[in-house]
């Protein structure tokens, strides 16, 4: 039998064994020199007594040292486990050790990272394998990775690789790892799982592999107290210089106690702090108002003070601040034709350069659209263009999917062509409804606009519109609707961007809408609403990803990781924006795209927020596969054999108690033998 310790760090307490000696030495009575006439009587009477006293001191010191040692050993929680020698008489085994290497395993509990604990126990299993056994080690991350390509008898090599392995920053995928393990064992063998069994990762695992023995070893019995920033957003997502914006982040408290945390923002010129109060296992938002003074790319982070799992305490942000919002108004009507919708739209958007300093409006006819304009525009306004090339439709569709905004004004003969099926519109146009008296519109979502309400529209009448029937599932997209149920104004998410369909007449003969001051206000409110969307970059470690960077010229584009090491990037497309395909990011942080040594863009990789929820699953609730035997190994049970290891800490606790009692008894006994001046002898 071998000794092992549950809390080996506590063995450091053995260093305190010398403490009683030190205390004795430091506090010992400094003898005072006294010239004493009856010296010979003292010597005669007390020579033997001195030896006894010295012996008593030694005995007490020994007891105290042993007491400290017993306490240190007790807190180290020792237990006896069987040696490999015993295991060698067993038949050879086929074993796959599945180590959870996800981010949550970096959490530190009682001074020991969970991964280190799992690693040590897995190493014990390897060492205890009988000769001739075959084994493999799988690290569970976003993609399971086997340390050796197949089961191997080279246990020492496997052991070395295991010991050198490191946890990842990735989100775990236990189902994929179990599948790989089952595939490697091919129906014969045992899977050992060393994991924190995070509920967020393990709940999707419906069933353990069948036909195999599964030994589940939770490396922790309870949730590791953790606070994390699980999301960070910038609203609007692409602000322009001088425009007020808001950076908000969500803080999650994965502990059973309420907490107050300080959130710190470090982004470009901004360094701010704020405090949030977090309920137990609850979330709270922290927000920082910022106004970027200049255009450009910025990268930064919001963060919390380090805790048991520090890796999720920082959330990185990359912001591209534009000079102005570039709107492309595509219309074939003459700009000076006051009967055309384009006339009213352009004036509503930019009455004068001073009135809308953040907007840069570009007018193009349908046939004049060039790729350059389309690739850089932030918002596309389509106001009844006569023609729209297939390439333009394709670019606009792609750009909207990438985050651009589209406003289609559906008034005119080409209206149906302005609804791009690839963007999953909420409705399709049917026949035109004309009403001389005009139809009112009703607001489906009250107070959607910040400065308008339904009352402002109640007096408006619209003489024509396209009849349509949005399905009930898209009812939420409709802002205004006609009495016949047709949608008058919808706003829908489309990829990472958004799309607005305006089914309203935009010429003077269609009603008094465009002549009403409510028209420019509505347009600007729509723009604001469209830019509210602030989908966070969801690139997480372990996943392949793409990155768009504004580039110019022929300079070589390189990407560096947070450690300033080059990342092998593959150029997918180039032009005014270069699209790069990147291998799975290993670490979270800020990745820089450089061209000619100048940073042209930043991209960020953040840890998966699911890893921040450290609450474990009830392992017993995992459903065993068909013909599989599942054993949950808890406490100090020996994972290698599944046998109950013998706990030794109670013996050390008893020893400590006995030593303490002995010390107190002897002290009382020997103290009573001491006599103070004037006291009667005992």
């Amino acid at each position, binding site marked *: 039998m071998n000794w092992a310790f549950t809390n080996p760090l506590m063995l450091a307490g053995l260093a305190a064994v010398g403490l009683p000696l030190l205390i004795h030495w430091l506090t*010992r*009575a*400094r*003898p*005072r*020199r*006294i*010239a*004493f*006439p*009856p*010296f*010979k*009587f*003292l*010597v*005669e*009477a*007390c*020579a033997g*007594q*001195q030896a006894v*006293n010295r012996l008593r001191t030694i005995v007490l010191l020994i007891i105290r040292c042993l007491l400290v040692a017993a306490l240190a050993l007790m807190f180290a929680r020792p237990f006896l486990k069987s040696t490999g020698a015993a295991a060698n008489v067993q038949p050879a085994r086929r074993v796959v050790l599945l180590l959870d290497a996800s981010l949550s395993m970096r959490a530190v509990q009682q001074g020991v990272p969970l991964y280190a604990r799992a690693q040590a126990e897995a190493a014990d299993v390897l060492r205890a394998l009988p000769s001739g056994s075959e084994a493999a080690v799988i690290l569970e991350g976003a993609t399971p990775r086997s340390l050796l390509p197949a089961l191997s008898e080279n246990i020492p090599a496997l052991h070395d690789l295991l010991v050198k392995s490191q946890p990842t920053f990735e989100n775990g995928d236990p189902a994929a790892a179990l599948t790989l393990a089952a595939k490697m064992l091919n129906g014969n063998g045992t899977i050992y799982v060393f994991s924190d069994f995070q509920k967020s990762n393990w709940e999707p695992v419906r069933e353990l592999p069948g036909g195999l023995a599964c030994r589940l070893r939770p490396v922790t019995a309870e949730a590791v107290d953790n606070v994390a920033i699980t999301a960070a957003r910038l609203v609007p997502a692409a602000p322009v210089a001088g425009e007020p914006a808001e950076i908000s982040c969500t803080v999650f408290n994965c502990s059973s106690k309420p907490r107050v945390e300080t959130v710190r923002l470090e982004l470009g010129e901004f360094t701010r702090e704020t405090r949030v109060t977090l309920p137990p296992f609850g979330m709270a938002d922290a927000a920082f108002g910022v106004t970027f003074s200049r255009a450009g790319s910025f990268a930064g982070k919001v963060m919390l003070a380090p805790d048991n799992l520090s890796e999720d305490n920082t959330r990185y942000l990359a912001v591209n601040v534009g000079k102005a919002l570039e709107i492309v108004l595509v219309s074939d009507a003459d700009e000076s034709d006051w009967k055309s919708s384009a006339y009213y739209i352009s004036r509503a958007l930019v009455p004068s350069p001073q009135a809308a300093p953040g907007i840069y409006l570009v007018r193009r006819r349908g046939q004049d659209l060039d790729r350059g304009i389309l690739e850089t525009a932030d918002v596309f306004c389509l106001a009844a263009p006569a023609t729209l090339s297939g390439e333009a439709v394709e670019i606009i569709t792609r750009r909207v999917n990438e985050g651009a905004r589209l406003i289609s004004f559906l008034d005119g003969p080409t209206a149906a062509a302005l609804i791009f099926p690839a963007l999953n519109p909420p409705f399709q146009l049917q026949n035109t409804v004309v009403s001389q008296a005009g139809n009112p519109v009703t607001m489906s979502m009250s107070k959607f606009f910040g400065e308008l309400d339904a009352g402002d529209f109640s007096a408006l009448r619209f003489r024509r519109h396209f009849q349509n029937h949005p399905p009930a599932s898209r009812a939420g997209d409709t802002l205004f609707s006609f009495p016949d149920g047709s949608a008058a104004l919808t706003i829908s998410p489309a990829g990472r961007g958004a799309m607005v369909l305006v089914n309203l007449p935009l010429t003077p003969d269609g009603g008094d809408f465009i002549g009403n001051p409510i028209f420019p206000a509505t347009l600007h409110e729509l723009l604001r609403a469209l830019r509210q969307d602030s989908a966070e970059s969801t690139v997480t470690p372990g996943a392949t990803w793409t990155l768009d960077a504004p580039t110019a010229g022929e300079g070589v584009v390189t990407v560096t990781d947070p450690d300033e090491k080059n990342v092998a990037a593959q150029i997918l497309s180039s032009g005014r924006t270069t699209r790069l395909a990147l291998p799975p990011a290993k670490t979270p942080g800020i990745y820089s795209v450089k061209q000619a040594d100048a940073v042209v863009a930043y991209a960020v990789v953040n840890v998966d927020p699911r890893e921040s929820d450290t609450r474990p699953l009830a392992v017993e609730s995992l459903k065993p596969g068909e013909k599989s035997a599942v054993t949950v190994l808890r406490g100090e049970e020996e994972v290698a054999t599944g046998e109950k290891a013998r706990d030794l800490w109670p013996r050390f606790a008893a020893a400590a108690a006995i030593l303490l009692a002995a010390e107190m008894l002897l002290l009382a006994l020997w103290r009573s*033998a*001491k*006599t*103070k*001046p*004037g006291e009667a*002898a*005992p």
Partner: protein
Amino acid sequence: MATLQHPYLNLAAMEALRGVRLSPRGAAEGTFAGPHKSHFRGTAVEFADYREYSPGDDIRLVDWKVFARTDRHYLRLYDAERNLLTYLVVDKSGSMEFSGAVARTPPKLEYAARLAAALGYLVLREGDELGLSLVDAKLHQHLAAAASWSQMSRVLDSLGNARAEGKTDLGACLEQVFAQTKRRGVLAVMSDFLDADARFWKSVDLFRSSRFDVMLFHIVHPEEIDLPAVAAARFVETEGGGHFNAEPDAVRAVYRRRFDAFLSEIKANCQARGCDWYLAKTSDDPYGFLRNCFLARENGR
């Protein structure tokens, strides 16, 4: 005498000793007539015996009534009241320097000197003769017995100049003192008697065999009885180079038994020889102590 002021003897001490009288247990044998009974026959009032006249005798002592009845000449003999000879022996060895480690008192030598001064005062006040010897390993200073007040000054000077130093050999010193005594009287020894060996007791026997009234004043410091109240101490020999580390609380009981045995041994030896033994603690008032001693002595008579 009324103006005598000395650290060892002052008016307060004299006041404390009013009414105290040193009375010898045996007959006095002084040079001059005094208040104490003597074996010398003289012209005092108390009849002692008759003896036949021999030529040269004082015819005034002839008892004429007896001559008338018997026709023979007999002389009337009377017990003369003689003055007392008192020899003070003060131990000034190194051990008498001890004044305590925690509970400080005057050094033992100073206490012995106060006792000796007070005793001397009592002796001279009665018109008796007083002698003084300061001893350690040898006899240092010996003042022959005299009955004058100037002797008191000499005694005080000697005591005042005494320094506690050197080893002790009380037995040898007493032998020397004995050799210098001319007549029997009272011997008062002030010492801690830590070297009270066989030779010492033999010298005491010398005095006793000469019918000296021997009084031993055993001077001890309270910490010698009960050990100093310190947590740990390095006890050093006062008359040697030895040292010994001890925790007094731990060894107090054992030591106390040993010291009690020592005191009992001294006391038993004194009783066996008919000597008076007085245990004087330096924490006590020496004059009050002396008064109590002599009152007890009077009562025990």
